[in-house]
């Protein structure tokens, strides 16, 4: 299916946004498709602090792969490493068979044209309206006539339900709308994959449901490969085909959402169920409570 046909399918009669849970599972149950992204022995450090220490990941074509983990576990850093915005200390990131960090700048930019990214804040250009934001990558990388740019932009905006908001400025958008516009912009060049950085953070339940459904529908309708970085367990497992849980710079568990729910790891169970105490203690390390209280007397 071509990307444009997929967009029309997304935007046309079946544009209801109810999540089709089975869609993702079907893909998950199919025999393994080839990996679009292969990460091997990835090491990355900020100064003396090691963020990634020997991480191996595979993101298979057509799937939604979720990277979950607590705040500060390096999830966003991982996306920047995949996009070539950061260089690893060791290891490799291959996207569509190309080693991202060995590419020259021109080749890296060519690869990025095929990788969409949705930032946590939307990262819309604040001096451009919604239409121009979505048109931005088209104008930057194509010589399409204005009429075709207009059609494409309206097609993308219709897919995210914001065709009517095309004249609004980013400051006039809610957080959820900004992310939907950013998604339309990420789709502008018909990428092969999209990376979502914390797409559910700070959204109301309705907007969150909209974004959750959009990620699934966009992925399936356009035949994309999606990588969702999030610490929102409930929303992420409803759409993910495969989940990696990372903590302390390592992959601590991976598998389908159902596999993870049955994990024997106490840490994974605490994370998946959002328990306040467990292997990750509620209390910050401190001396004995009683002696601490009596010590002041």
């Amino acid at each position, binding site marked *: 299916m071509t990307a444009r046909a997929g967009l029309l399918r997304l935007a046309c009669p079946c544009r209801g946004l109810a999540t089709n849970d089975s869609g993702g599972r079907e893909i998950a149950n199919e025999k393994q498709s080839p990996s679009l992204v292969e990460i091997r022995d990835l090491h990355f450090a900020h100064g003396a602090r090691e963020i990634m220490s020997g991480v191996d990941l595979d993101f298979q074509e057509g799937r939604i792969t979720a990277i979950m983990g607590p705040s500060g576990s390096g999830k966003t850093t991982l996306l*920047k490493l995949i*996009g070539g*915005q950061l260089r690893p200390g060791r290891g490799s990131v291959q996207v569509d068979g190309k080693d991202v960090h060995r590419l020259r700048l021109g080749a890296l*930019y*060519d690869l*990025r*044209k095929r*990788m*969409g*990214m949705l*930032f*946590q*804040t939307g*990262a*819309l*250009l*604040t001096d451009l309206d919604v239409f121009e934001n979505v048109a*931005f*990558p088209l104008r*930057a*990388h194509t010589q399409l006539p204005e009429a075709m740019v207009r059609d494409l932009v309206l097609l993308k905006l219709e897919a995210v339900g914001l065709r009517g908001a095309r004249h609004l400025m980013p400051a006039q958008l809610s957080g959820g709308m900004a992310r939907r516009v*950013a998604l339309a*912009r990420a789709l502008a*060049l018909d990428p092969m994959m999209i990376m979502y950085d914390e797409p559910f953070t700070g959204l109301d339940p309705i907007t969150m449901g909209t974004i959750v459904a959009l990620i699934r529908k966009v992925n399936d309708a356009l035949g994309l490969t999606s990588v969702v970085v999030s610490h929102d367990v409930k929303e992420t497992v409803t759409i993910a085909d495969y989940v990696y849980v990372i903590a302390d710079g390592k992959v601590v568990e991976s598998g389908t959402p159902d596999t993870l729910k049955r994990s024997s790891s106490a840490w994974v169970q605490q994370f998946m169920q959002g328990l306040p105490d467990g292997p990750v203690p509620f209390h910050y390390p401190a001396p004995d409570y009683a002696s601490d209280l009596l010590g002041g007397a």
Partner: protein
Amino acid sequence: MLLQGLQGLGRSVIGGVTKLGRANLFMLRVLAAVPGLLRTPGLVMAQIYSVGVLSLLIIVVSGLFVGMVLGLQGYNTLIGFGAEESLGVLVALSLVRELGPVVGALLFGGRAGSAMSAEIGLMKATQQLSGMEMMAVDPIRQVVAPRFVAGVISLPLLVAIFSAVGVYGGYMVGVGLLGVDAGSFWSQMQSKVLLQEDVLNGVIKSVVFGVVASWIAVFEGYEAAPTSEGVSRATTRTVVYTSLAVLGWDFILTGLMFKEA
């Protein structure tokens, strides 16, 4: 104590030299991106409006008052020597050689330079620059280079306007208020202010200040920590560094240009 002080001094020097190195490499990237702007002149035009046209008010008003003060002070000094007819020369030379480029650049740094730093810093803090990179658009070419070029083009023009308005301010006070002969005011200015030695050197100064002020502004914005505090600090540093750099370069350029004086 002494050792700690020396260590601190060493760290500061190394940090300063490292930052200077980064600023130079950054400048090379900006200059490499400049030829590409020929394909997108609209980006530069928009920035010329933002940093140049919108700075006109402060430049014109400041130029007028500086010229008027020069007229007053110059008249009070020259009249003691019976040389008040030379007021036009004094006002024009002061403005064209020194006050025009220096005050113009200081005002530019405070108004347009700080705005450039804040804008680029905020774009960084809100991930707009990262977003461009991921859309395979070089933010140096799209955001930084147009602002740099606009600053380099705008400042000399603003300085020329500052000096022209200043001369008129001096004329208003000297001729209109204090009774200096208008013919002497203009004719002495015409005969004593030389195109190459005075006007051209003033233009060279304003171009150098334009490069320095714009370079500092875009670099500090691009290097800003992506937080509100980081942007605030970058804006402050832009104004401080621009002021110091302009005054320092003015001394060097004056020494080189006006040796015989």
